[in-house]
């Protein structure tokens, strides 16, 4: 193991939240990010469901990494993920039928979220149980956070409310396009712009200090 890989557990947790945020930095798992973030509530539910699957699959993949042959590992990972997604699908159906209707096929589509398979392949299949749990937690929370950012922004602009609580008076003109598909692309582009702008400003000011 090189020195670079010997990070502490806290680092594994924190990196998912910010420096390697799955949505804003790694741009992974885009489909649910855009599709179900038309309200903050949907975004939160989707984020939690994904985080749960991510955590559980990280745990299982990390525990069985010793005896899965290399050739069939991807298939094994996918099957593990699919089993947990089936569980989540039935749980959401039992808890709230409305939510299940709102999220629709996208709960089942957590299976093909590249983020989960990506973490299983890139992290959990190479690291121990404890670190994989921390990684799954961090990435899951980071993903939920990003979904909330998008869902919140789209709901505020598109419906003038947040978590179904109206924010503005009756005079508020709803920006309908924000809850439509096109709005998803624009909102995500907006957030990425913000992140890029911060990054360029940081490197610029660092350059000025050196000069």
């Amino acid at each position, binding site marked *: 193991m090189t020195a670079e890989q010997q990070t502490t557990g806290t680092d594994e947790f924190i990196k998912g939240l910010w420096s390697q945020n799955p949505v804003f930095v790694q741009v992974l798992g885009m*489909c649910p990010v855009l599709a179900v973030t038309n309200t903050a509530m949907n975004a939160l539910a989707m984020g939690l469901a994904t985080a749960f699957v991510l955590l559980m699959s990280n745990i299982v993949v990390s525990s069985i990494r010793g005896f899965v042959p290399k050739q069939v590992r991807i298939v094994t990972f996918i099957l593990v993920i699919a089993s947990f997604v089936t569980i989540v699908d039935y749980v959401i159906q039992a808890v709230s039928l409305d939510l299940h209707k709102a999220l629709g096929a996208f709960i*089942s589509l957590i299976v*093909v979220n590249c983020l989960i398979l990506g973490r299983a392949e890139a992290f959990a299949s190479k690291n121990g149980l404890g670190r994989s749990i921390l990684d799954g937690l961090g990435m899951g929370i980071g993903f939920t956070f990003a979904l909330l950012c998008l869902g919140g922004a789209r709901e505020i602009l598109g419906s003038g409310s947040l978590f179904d609580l109206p924010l503005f008076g009756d005079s508020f003109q709803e920006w309908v396009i924000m809850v439509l598909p096109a709005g998803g*692309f624009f909102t995500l582009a907006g957030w990425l712009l913000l992140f890029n702008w911060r990054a360029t400003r940081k490197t610029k000011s660092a350059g000025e200090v050196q000069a």
Partner: protein
Amino acid sequence: MNQEPLWSIFINACLINNFVLAYFLGICPFLGVSAKLATATRMGLAVMFVMLVSSTCAYGIQALLLWIDAPYLKLISFIAVIASTVQLVEMFIKKMSPTLFRALGIFLPLITTNCAILGLALFQTNKGYGFAQSIIYALGAGAGFTLALILMAGLREKLELARTPDVVKGTAITLIIAGLLSVCFMGFAGLGSSQ
């Protein structure tokens, strides 16, 4: 049983509810391989083929699962079928055109995790399409995916020559273009008989 006419299913899947621009399925390859027109076209065709095969299989599996009364196995069996189809396509392309194989790179095995394909299989069972309807639905969705990919690739090739501010370079400008394309496709909403 759903009685929707075939032409309406095709137009619906291809234009009105375009998988990429209205349902947000298959965004990863849409953003990932849309930089070059030639690659985008072939990627689109590969996806279309996988869609066709997996949609046919999904129809059979659904019937079988209903027969043995085990609907909770749906997701797992669908993804297994898709993964094997992709493996088949991958071997085929590797044999026929190594250049294309290299150009598609990591995105070829990633067709497995292309949500458009699993989404297609799930939607067709949810809507209760028959055999012919399923095939037309897969064709329409594949054509729609290819269309979106080609449009996007054309725009991005032009964009290479344009002067864009540093801040928007990369993913941000691509997403803005995708948003504009999505707005354009909203214009098709009046075409079909039903949503």
